[in-house]
């Protein structure tokens, strides 16, 4: 779509409103609703409804079902769902985290993942993580939990559409090829590290939490001072063991 098209659609508030109505109606009516039904329920001219539906299908917000007459919400709506869900940690999982926190002298944090973002599920109250969730999401390439997410993707662009990294510290990886090499390392060793890449003195080690099907659902991270890097790395086996115990409690 060209810039002209976008400028034009901004001047058609009625069309946008109508399109949103159609989308709402597909959501309300449930999978299989027909175009005719939607037009009738909204008392909208049928030609307009059909055109709007075709546009929504073209954009992936609505899917035309294989019978060609029914409609359902599309995967693209997942972006809205991702923004709406809140991570909840059950009591059993909190117990596992509590045990781990007693055995180490670093911050222990649990993160969840949506398809393209990191969400803080349970941060260590005693040693809080170095940065908040939105900062981590803006700099996925500079933190251990973010790099675990990136390592999961076949194409970097699906999470970071435009590669415009900011050097947060002297050690932040800002060269694309270096990041790709780092992600390869993460895939092969099965955990990610952040060594003064996010903040000058901070360090982090994160191991993945995977569902039964092997999908990345969360990560268990240790945060501390960069001088204690070796001590932190020594905890990787224990982190993995706890991550395995957490997996069935999360998926």
């Amino acid at each position, binding site marked *: 779509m060209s810039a002209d098209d976008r400028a034009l659609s901004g001047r058609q508030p009625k069309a946008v409103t109508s399109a949103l109505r159609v989308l709402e109606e597909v959501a309300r009516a449930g999978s299989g609703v*027909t175009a005719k039904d939607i037009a009738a329920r909204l008392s909208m001219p049928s030609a307009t409804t059909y055109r709007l539906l075709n546009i929504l299908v073209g954009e992936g917000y609505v899917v035309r079902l294989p019978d060609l007459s029914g409609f359902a919400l599309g995967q693209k709506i997942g972006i809205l769902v991702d923004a709406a869900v809140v991570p909840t940690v059950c009591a059993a999982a909190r117990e596992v985290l509590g045990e781990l926190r007693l055995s180490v002298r670093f911050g222990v944090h649990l993160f969840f*993942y949506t398809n393209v973002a990191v969400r803080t599920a349970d941060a260590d109250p005693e040693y809080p993580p170095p940065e908040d969730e939105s900062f981590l999401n803006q700099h996925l390439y500079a933190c251990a939990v973010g790099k675990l997410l990136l390592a999961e993707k076949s194409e970097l662009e699906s999470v970071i559409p435009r590669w415009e990294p900011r050097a947060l510290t002297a050690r932040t990886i800002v060269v694309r090829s270096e990041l790709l090499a780092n992600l390869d390392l993460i895939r092969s060793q099965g955990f990610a590290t952040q060594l003064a890449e996010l903040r000058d003195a901070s360090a982090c080690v994160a191991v993945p939490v995977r569902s039964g099907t092997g999908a990345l659902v969360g990560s268990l991270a240790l945060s501390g001072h960069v001088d204690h890097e070796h001590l932190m790395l020594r905890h990787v086996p224990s982190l993995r063991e706890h991550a395995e115990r957490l997996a069935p409690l999360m998926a």
Partner: protein
Amino acid sequence: MVSGTPRIRSRSPVAGLERARLSFVQVLGQSVSAVAPSAVMVTLPALVIPDAGRATIAVFVAAAILMTAVGYCIGQFATRMVAVSGLYSYIVKGLGAVPGFGGGWSLLVGYAAAAMASTLGAASYLAALLGRVGLPAGSPLIAVLAAIVGLLALLLMVRGVQLSARIMLAIEVFAIVAASAALVVAFVQSIREGATPSAGGAKSGSAVGFAVLLAITSFVGFESAGTVAREARNPFVAVPRAIRWTPIALGVLYVFAAALQLPEPVRQGVDSLPIVLTLPDTSGAGSSALSIVMELGITASWFACVLGSTTALSRTLFAMGREGVVPSVFGRTHHRFHTPHVALTAAMPVVVAVPVLYLFVSGSSRDVLIGLLAVSAHGYVLAYVLLCVATPAFLRRIGELTRLPVIVGVLTATAMVALVGWAAFSRAYVAGAATAVYVLLMLVGAAVFAIRARRSPGIGERMGVYDEAVAEDLLGRYRPWEVRR
């Protein structure tokens, strides 16, 4: 009323074929290349002008309007289904299995004959170009060149749809520019020599009818964007847009070309070049830089047309293979390049062999070209008529019928049938060998369908495969707490 979620597959019936690769411009390239507009620009006006005279421009405008209307009907389908076999699957969805197969087979004949004609066209022009450096022209040389053209096209198309689309687009742009330049130069020369841009009046009303039909054949192929929908990025937008704009853009090009050829001397000047329909009888007559550029351009255009037509042909065969209408081996795709390599490899030798054999029998490239293009035009016209009828039927079936598609569909179908009837009664358009060959091929198709239908009775249910929505496209199966690769 809400009918509940119909059966959703977990895997697309056309999986294996590349997905979401082609940009809008490349999809447009597919449509334009299958038409080979630059070759048409320098030949068809010259064919139409004697019949239509001053009405030539009106004839091309009328043909453009008619084809734009067909494009509108195709758009009704293309905004609703991601097809891999274009008009074939559309007609099946609108009219059912038997008319659908008729339309699909007719299109196969159309695409195959167009690919054959373009292979021969490319080989003949190459031969003419090589003749300039002293190679002996003749059928053996053309046969060898046709085999080379076919092999090269096959390699490109098996290697990947993106590569062939890119090459197709680049050479077609070159071809159009070359043809336009040649026409402008010829026009300017004739004006300087004092010719007035005028042509005689139309011969008769019936001659104009035939001329419009002839002009329509210069648009066929524009619908082939529908065969690469799965391979296109954002297909619901890109494919309808390409099919909507191609006839309009072609109409502008042809009117421009026709206007430049109205003065008698231009036509003669262009005619004296070894253009499409005089090959190879007068090759070597023109040796100016102008004619070399034009020959290069037209060779390129024919080659792009080989790629465009065979891509469409192979995708239609591929879909039929997946349905079991033709042996399922045609439905296989290459594991690395994600192209229907079996359909391509099976089609290409036929596309090369038929025109070469025909050439050895008839001895004249010109006759072979005209014969093949005539057979091909039959195939397209029937498919277009069926599609226009299928449009309101399809929209009614899915409950999305509005007034405009009914009007456009019925009017366009009626106009095309009337035009064919008009031309048939007035001239020997239909009563030629081409019609006999076409009818014979359609009978072969009917036999193939009858045999396949007897072997597997449920085949009608499986026809009309397209890239339908699968489970992972739906929000219903969405799990927010999970990273997808």
